[in-house]
């Protein structure tokens, strides 16, 4: 009997349940989909290196899921409170009819159970679909050769999802029981007669506050753009505080501002229900401004993390694509620049250093002589050809360049990304013959360099504008006793295997300008392997690096194509999936809270809409006012969030340049569109539900 009543109740108030159900389904679907990635068939086909990355991804997602579950729990409880409030009167009726409170608990628990089971079923079904897309996407990130689409169901993720949501429903039932237990019959009966009191604010004050809010937000944007993100400077703190204060003030005053502005335009104000809906808006602002501010900031964080996160991985992927011209690159470093003193300090390499010196710092020769010590095949069996580039300190500092050209590196690089004392840093120089040899090894044409010329070689995105400006200024420098003039075009080629492009303004000079006395601080060896020898060469290199045998060459960094590719795609997967997962849940949370607030409002305002209908306002006019009202509540936090995001992205672009060139990429565009779609659907569901609530029914 109680079950029948509960089922009938759910069916009867299906429209009220719509937002609640929709939120549950989305939450469950996303929760399952992300937790199931690691266990999927598609991912199981990924190679070993990639699988490690996927294990990391699964681990991180599991941890994040705890946090996500908490957000979803709050959301479900919040949504459920709305439903319960709507039905106080119904519960009162049951009690008046003599139903025991215990039975009431049972009805309420059964309803939660019915909605819970239904949403789990639908949510898991949708989650299965999303999961297939995500895991096949992940698989193709690691290995483009995965054929076909693998379908799989992850029992673990399923169990986790059911457990998490069962817990959430249990908490909901307990809270509902608490609510019903505390409620007195008289309060339930009079629930919808509760008078809301409106605290009205001075309109001129709102007007001024709104302008102040815009100015504060403007100042915070300026502070952020001038000072950047990386260093935790007081300006950054100030920008953060100001943007929050500005946002809150904005939502505190925006409704009053809109009202005041419209009042000044009589034909607009005295038209249809404009007056009514603007007054409604400003009356609700007192209770709504905090949540709207929080939602705007949350949307901002969600969008920035998705765009920024995906931007960073895309930049890294682009660098990686650039940095895979050779099968492997080896770097040996013999000295380090001490930035404080401006002195070059030799590293303590001990016997390894002696071994390097004995081989005259010729890396290919030294490494070839190391094969025996680590039990690797002979060098010539593995290596097709190799080119070495020696980086020597030119004695020319960035400060000198600034003096010679009048161009400062600080004007070209985003604020906060460089330390303040870069002026003393010396530039590297390399011989053009080595530079061209490396180009040829990569299948590129050599560059032509005149007797009195040097080229600026820069592959770091961060400083590319600066390098172009230097080249264009035809800077003149004293190198090796000659005055050399910069070629007007900077070289931006990456001549090593690497995931992160990092050569900053290296000077490429004629061979006879290279002085043996200039300190050689690091050398780079680019290697093309014989076919099929890549893996053997990779393990040889790691053997050398790990070896304690003094008869091996000192190696400080090894990067092979397969390592770079696996790293970059693994990193892509981890960062993009996390950003999308968190971002999606945040967007759902924001939209659901907005939706529930608007529905609560609509429920509270039924009498007002009824009066307006009695006064003869056509249904279309009333629907229009409701549409505008709810539209503003959804649109403004989104607009402010987008504005904040656009500003923040200006700075994020600078940060991303540390990793390479920014490309927000299709993934983030698709993600944003998906976010907007979810947000839009919430808006529509809210509007339609609210419209149905306030619809004037002839008795």
């Amino acid at each position: 009997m109680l079950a029948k009543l509960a089922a009938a109740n759910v069916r009867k108030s299906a429209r009220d349940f719509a937002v609640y159900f929709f939120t549950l389904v989305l939450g469950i679907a996303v929760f399952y989909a992300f937790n199931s990635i690691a266990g999927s068939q598609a991912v199981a086909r990924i190679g070993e290196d990639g699988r490690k990355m996927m294990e990391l991804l699964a681990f991180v997602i599991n941890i994040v899921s705890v946090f996500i579950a908490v957000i979803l729990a709050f959301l479900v409880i919040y949504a459920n409170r709305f439903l319960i409030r709507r039905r106080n009167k119904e519960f009162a009726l049951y009690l008046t009819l003599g139903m025991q409170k215990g039975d009431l608990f049972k009805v309420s628990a059964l309803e939660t159970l019915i909605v819970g089971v239904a949403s789990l079923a639908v949510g898991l079904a949708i989650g299965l679909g999303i999961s297939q897309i995500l895991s096949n996407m992940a698989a193709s990130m690691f290995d483009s050769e995965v054929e076909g689409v693998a379908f799989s169901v992850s029992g673990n993720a399923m169990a986790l999802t059911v457990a998490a949501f069962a817990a959430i429903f249990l908490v909901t039932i307990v809270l509902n029981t608490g609510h019903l237990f505390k409620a007195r019959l008289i309060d339930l009966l009079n629930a919808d007669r509760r008078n809301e009191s409106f605290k009205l604010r001075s309109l001129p004050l709102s007007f001024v506050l709104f302008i102040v809010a815009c100015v504060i937000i403007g100042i915070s944007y300026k502070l952020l753009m001038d000072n950047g993100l990386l260093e935790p400077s007081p300006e950054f703190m100030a920008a953060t505080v100001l943007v929050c204060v500005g946002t809150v003030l904005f939502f505190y005053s925006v409704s009053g501002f809109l009202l005041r502005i419209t009042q000044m335009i009589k034909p607009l104000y005295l038209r249809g229900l404009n007056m009514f809906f603007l007054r409604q808006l400003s009356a609700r602002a007192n209770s709504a401004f905090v949540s709207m501010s929080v939602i705007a900031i949350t949307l901002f964080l969600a969008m920035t993390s998705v765009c920024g996160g995906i931007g960073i991985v895309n930049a890294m992927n682009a660098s990686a694509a650039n940095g895979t011209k050779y099968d492997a690159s080896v770097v040996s470093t013999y000295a380090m620049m001490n930035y404080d003193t401006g002195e070059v300090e030799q590293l303590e390499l001990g016997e390894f250093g002696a071994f390097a010196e004995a081989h005259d710092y010729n890396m290919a020769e030294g490494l070839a002589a190391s094969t025996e010590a680590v039990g690797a095949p002979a060098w010539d069996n593995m290596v097709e050809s190799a080119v070495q580039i020696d980086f020597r300190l030119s004695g020319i500092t960035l400060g000198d360049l600034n003096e010679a050209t009048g161009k400062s590196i600080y004007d070209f690089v985003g604020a906060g990304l460089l330390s303040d004392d870069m002026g003393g840093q010396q530039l590297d120089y390399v011989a053009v013959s080595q530079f061209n040899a490396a180009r040829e090894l990569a299948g590129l044409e050599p560059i032509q360099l005149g007797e009195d010329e040097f080229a600026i070689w820069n592959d770091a995105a961060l400083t590319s504008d600066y390098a172009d400006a230097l080249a264009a200024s035809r800077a003149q420098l004293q190198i090796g006793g000659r005055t050399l003039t910069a070629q007007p075009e900077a070289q931006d080629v990456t001549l090593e295997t690497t995931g992160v492009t990092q050569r900053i303004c290296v000077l490429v000079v004629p061979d006879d300008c290279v002085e043996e006395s200039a300190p050689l601080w690091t050398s780079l060896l680019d290697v093309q392997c014989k076919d099929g020898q890549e893996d053997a060469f990779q393990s040889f290199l790691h053997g050398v690096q790990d070896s304690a045998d003094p008869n091996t060459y000192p190696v400080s960094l090894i990067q092979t194509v397969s390592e770079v590719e696996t790293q970059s795609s693994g990193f892509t997967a981890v960062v993009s999936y996390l950003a999308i997962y968190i971002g999606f849940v945040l967007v759902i949370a924001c939209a659901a809270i907005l939706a529930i607030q608007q529905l609560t409002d609509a429920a509270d305002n039924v009498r007002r809409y009824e009066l307006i209908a009695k006064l003869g306002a056509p249904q279309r006019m009333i629907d229009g006012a409701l549409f505008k009202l709810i539209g503003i509540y959804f649109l403004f936090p989104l607009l402010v969030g987008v504005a904040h995001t656009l500003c923040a992205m200006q700075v994020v672009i600078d940060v991303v340049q540390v990793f390479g060139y920014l490309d927000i990429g299709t993934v983030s565009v698709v993600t944003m569109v998906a976010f907007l779609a979810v947000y839009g659907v919430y808006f529509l569901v809210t509007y339609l539900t609210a419209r149905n609530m306030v619809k004037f029914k002839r008795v």
Partner: protein
Amino acid sequence: MPGHVLEVENVSKRYGGARGENATLALDGVSFFVDQGEFVGIMGPSGSGKSTLLNCISTIDTLTEGAIRIAGRDITLLRSKELAKFRRDELGFVFQDSNLLDTLTVRENIALALTIQRASSREIPGRVEDMAQRLGISETLDKYPYQISGGQKQRAAAARAVITRPSLVLADEPTGALDSKSSGQLLETFELLNRMGSTIVMVTHDAFTASWCHRIIFIKDGRLWGQLRRQDDTREQFFSRIVAATTRLGGEVRNAG
């Protein structure tokens, strides 16, 4: 010669099934006319059907049988879209609790009836001022409903009801929530509006309130029970006749809200 503004012709309202045995007749063949410029009261005990009748006239409820014509148009033939337009242009409402929107000032509350009509924004402020002045509520125009007295609220509601120059003003227990002094002021306002040309139909159970009308229509058990005309009586005399009639009506008039 002014015609009938309101014609109620053989109106029946049945609840619960079209011809089922359990059907209840709320109205049973009620007929009467209201002429232009009249001020008519409808009285009857609780459950007599007077509220149902008013709801039917105000197009908020539907009839089972019969016809209601307002300004010559049969409202039972209007489609629901036309009904809203009809209420907007032809009817004015005053409810028991003033039903002013508490988020709007009095001025805006009165103007709302005109903006819904999409009246020209240039003429709205003038018309509102003018009406407020006539009803003596000019000084309350920029206040919010919670800042003014119940009587002032009801007069503002009356101003809202007549500002669109409707054919018919419908008042449902307008003095129900007022003390006697405010009731008197409101009824004087009604009298003033009536002299200015408004046709008013007012439902009340209170003889004092009813004594302001020109004519009282009594309803009992869904049927017309009789009517009283004031003719040349003073209000006091008319009041006595009304009290006598309601006593005869069965003495069942309860003080129902």
